[in-house]
């Protein structure tokens, strides 16, 4: 059986995700923020026009960031630079690949361009990361060629509850697969809406075939440590850093918290001197139509 995640092109894509493990990927909107992020120890930056909290507040159609802005950020730092394209918008992805970004996030944070189809990510040389809320969604994205999965959480909310829900769901569904009999996996693949060969791989190995990171609502060192202890292999922080009152100190503190995620004394040190985090949203008050995580399938 041909397993695409064993071919060299795919291994090179997953290779960069391997290098980002145990790190923090930070949303930035200009060169100055990118330099602050790099200096604080970010493993990569996500180049954006607006952070998710502003996208949420201002509304309208959110698209790929202006090229000038992404280029300015690429020139400012030596760490990998990621950029987002809209779900299904393969032309934006083609432009980002031509620009030379290191990773593309096919992201629910931007307004979807296609409500039925995601980008065929195997057609690209640049690697893709995609969001997921559960195992079926993660495996569908991997089948399309995603080389990294991140939980969706609820971007721009400053509320970690959805990131926790999605990470727990994925980990629980992985554990459940490992105890099923071989003959039960086909029915499970049908239920998950995922290819059987990927379901079999996960059942055998007890993990996803690509790194599994966490995103969407992480605002404090404690939030980062929480999702890491729940099984995240690295953390994306969006609005949490540059919407706080102390971006530099907070960026450094979250980097430290991800490295020492299971060491309470170090987590205390990381949390010690921080001021107020970004204002958060109570998600029980957020109507379904304003939830970003429900975009994509």
């Amino acid at each position, binding site marked *: 059986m041909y397993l695409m995640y064993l071919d060299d092109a795919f291994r*090179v894509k997953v290779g960069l995700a391997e*290098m980002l493990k*145990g790190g923090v990927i930070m949303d930035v909107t200009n060169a100055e923020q990118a330099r602050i992020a790099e200096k604080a120890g970010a493993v990569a930056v996500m180049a954006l026009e607006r952070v998710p909290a502003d996208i949420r507040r201002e509304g309208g159609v959110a698209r790929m960031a202006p090229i000038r802005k992404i280029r300015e950020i690429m020139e400012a730092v*030596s760490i990998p630079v990621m950029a987002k394209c809209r779900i299904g918008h393969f032309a934006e992805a083609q432009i980002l690949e031509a620009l030379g970004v290191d990773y593309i996030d096919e992201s629910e944070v931007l307004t979807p361009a296609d409500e039925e189809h995601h980008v065929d990510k195997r057609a690209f040389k640049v690697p893709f990361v995609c969001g997921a809320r559960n195992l079926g969604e993660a495996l569908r994205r991997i089948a399309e060629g995603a080389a990294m999965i991140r939980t969706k959480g609820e971007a721009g909310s400053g509320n970690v509850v959805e990131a926790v829900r999605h990470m727990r769901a994925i980990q629980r569904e992985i554990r459940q697969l490992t105890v099923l009999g071989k003959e039960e996996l086909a029915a499970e693949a049908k239920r998950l809406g995922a290819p059987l060969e990927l379901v079999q791989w996960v059942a055998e190995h007890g993990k996803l075939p690509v790194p599994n990171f966490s995103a969407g609502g992480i605002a404090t060192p404690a939030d980062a440590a929480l999702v890491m202890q729940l099984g995240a292999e690295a953390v994306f922080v969006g609005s949490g850093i540059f919407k706080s009152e102390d971006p530099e100190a907070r960026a450094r503190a979250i980097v430290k918290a991800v490295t020492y995620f299971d060491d309470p004394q170090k987590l205390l040190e990381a949390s010690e001197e921080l001021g107020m985090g970004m204002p958060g949203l109570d998600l029980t008050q957020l109507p379904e139509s304003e939830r970003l995580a429900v975009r994509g399938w």
Partner: protein
Amino acid sequence: MRIVGVLALQGDFEAHARALEQVGARPVLVRKAAELDAAEALVIPGGESTTMLRLLEDEGLFEALRAFGRERPIFGTCAGAILLATEVTNPTQSSLGLMDIAVERNAYGRQIESRIVRLAPEPEFAREAGDGALEAVFIRAPIIRRTGPGVRVYARYLGDPVLVAHGRHMAATFHPELSSDRRVHRLFLERIEAGNARAG
């Protein structure tokens, strides 16, 4: 069984730990200076060198690693090779200075230039580690631009050294931990044994 530390601040340290287990060593993850005590040697994994430097400096590990390297072997891959070098460019940054090599970061370009190649290693590698092509996984890899006297080159790619040894230390600009061939990790382990035999 040799106890080999793996610097676990960030990066693909778990892949190195697995590789070390496969060649019969016992890996221990190192995040604090005190955790170096039990280790006979250390691996510095791939990852982002700027992130590792930030944490090494903030957590008081930078000097501890330097002192460790004066007595015990260190093997660095990619970011690890950058940290071991005496000179780092693109951009200039501080390093442990334990191997006399000059390294240029991201020297092949961005991720789109990352690649997997099969190399024909130098005869010395075949002699010490075994015959056959060597798979090299390059991820936003650095290039070793200069090697000082006494640096041994085990493999080259496009003319540039990619696997080198200097004194007790070893460095690779690629990621042997991401391949299934364990000759490079075995070579590191054998060099630990040989160093101990000399010392003992």
